[in-house]
């Protein structure tokens, strides 16, 4: 049993790591801007399309295949730089102070636009580019073979979490972001340009989603509908952890991975719904999620 459950769990954890990047961005945008961006998952699929396209180009142009690794990061940065400031300064800004219904409708509209845009640019066929997985190969530990790329995904998720803590706790920008999360109005009165902070946080959120998507292409590829699927899963993870709680989202991602493995073992039919069952149970017991608090705002 150990021989099968461990690789299954590692596989689930690697997937959870990707979803964690999306949930991380979602929760970051939620805590700073106080909006729930329904279109957030679309940046995962756009990140995936862009990184797959760049990866395929690198391979077909006969460039050094190791360039596909920095290409993953560059793809995410490109998507964030292209969409982040533009969308926040235009569509998202109109929703500030207008209530949740307007925010959900507006970002849902954005989601529809982005879905069409992806079909227009990338067509309906699926993209798959696995050079990074092939380059890294696999490793045998205790008689079990793991894909090094999957281990890398898990490590990267941990690195992202630690990096965010260091950023929030020890850099000027991160500290100011924490002040904005805690109290917008006093931020403004103390001289913080809160609008600029919103743009930065929104762009960072998109970067995280796009990075998740870019990192996913080598193992899973990308096809139409990926954005919506990812959004729903990422929302479940963010809600389980408590909206606005980054550590909560990380723990939720691990729990969801464990639940899926358990489901595969006990009720294989429930594999896909396991994350939502966990969400249902957690929210029934703790309506604000595992780490969530109704009033206090922190990051």
């Amino acid at each position, binding site marked *: 049993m150990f021989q099968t459950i461990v690789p299954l769990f590692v596989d689930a954890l690697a997937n959870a790591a990707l979803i964690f990047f999306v949930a991380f961005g979602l929760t970051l945008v939620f805590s700073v801007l106080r909006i729930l961006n329904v279109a957030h998952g679309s940046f995962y699929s756009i990140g995936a399309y862009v990184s797959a396209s760049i990866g395929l180009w690198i391979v077909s142009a006969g460039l050094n295949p190791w360039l596909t690794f920095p290409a993953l990061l560059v793809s995410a940065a490109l998507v964030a730089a292209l969409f982040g400031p533009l969308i926040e300064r235009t569509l998202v800004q109109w929703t500030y102070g207008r209530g949740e219904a307007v925010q959900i409708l507006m970002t849902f509209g954005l989601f529809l636009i982005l879905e069409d845009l992806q079909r227009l640019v990338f067509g309906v066929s699926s993209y798959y580019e696995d050079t990074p997985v092939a380059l890294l190969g696999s490793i045998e530990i205790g008689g079990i073979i793991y894909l090094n790329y999957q281990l890398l995904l898990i490590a990267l998720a941990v690195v992202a979490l630690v990096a965010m803590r260091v950023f929030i706790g020890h850099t*000027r920008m991160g*500290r*100011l972001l*924490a*002040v904005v999360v*805690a*109290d917008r*109005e*006093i*931020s*403004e*009165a*103390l*001289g*913080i*340009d*809160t*609008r600029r902070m919103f743009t930065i946080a929104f762009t960072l959120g998109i970067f995280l989603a796009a990075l998740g998507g870019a990192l996913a292409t080598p193992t899973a590829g990308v096809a139409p509908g990926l954005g919506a699927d990812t959004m729903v899963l990422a929302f479940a993870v963010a809600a389980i952890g408590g909206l606005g709680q980054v550590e909560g989202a990380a723990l939720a991602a691990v729990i969801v991975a464990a639940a899926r493995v358990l489901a595969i073992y006990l009720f294989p039919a429930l594999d896909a719904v396991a994350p939502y069952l966990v969400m249902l149970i957690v929210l029934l017991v703790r309506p604000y999620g595992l780490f969530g608090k109704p009033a*206090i705002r*922190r990051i």
Partner: protein
Amino acid sequence: MLTVRNLKVEIAGVEVLRDVGFSLAAGKATVMVGRNGAGKTTTLRAIMGLLPWKAGSVRIDGTELGPLPGHARAGLGIGYAPEDRRLIADFTVEENILVPALVRRMSAAERTRRLDEVYSLLPQLAVMRARPGGGVSGGQGKIVALGRALMLADKVLLLDEPFQGLAPALALEYARTLAHLHSNKRDIAILVTESSPKLLNSIADATLHIERGEIESLASPGDVGGLQHA
């Protein structure tokens, strides 16, 4: 230093400030007295850019604040302590006081100089510097908010109802602190709002009465008992 003229503010279609005008001078402490709902908090929030105004003007040393976004106003040397303190619960007292230093990218030397000044004016703060902002009492929180405002107040210090909800002993301590501050920081203009003027008589150089969004009378220095530091 700071001049407010014919300020009109509407909140949700209701005219909350109808005609507010006054001016503050460097080295002078002005007390704005008015009952609850008179418009004291609204006046300060409008000056800080937290509320838009319909008409009127606010100038600081000749610079019109109207077109400036809120965050740009703090940089002109206005320190503001809101009536509800608004400390960052996760930050220590010292980190709260240092937020303006972070915002203004103060050099380490400048930061230390200002922080030392705040601690020497408000020695209570040095004692609780390491406590979390969320873990100080309401009265102590008011002093922290005052210290934080001092980091920015090169020209003007705006204190909104600092005595509201303070136990008598703490209110007396705060008033003493304010008097000490007033006599030691002669280069800044101070505005304190209050619903009852008693505690501030000793430091008020001028008193403004605000009633239903209008300044009713301007008492000039000498009308009010006390003051006379020099």
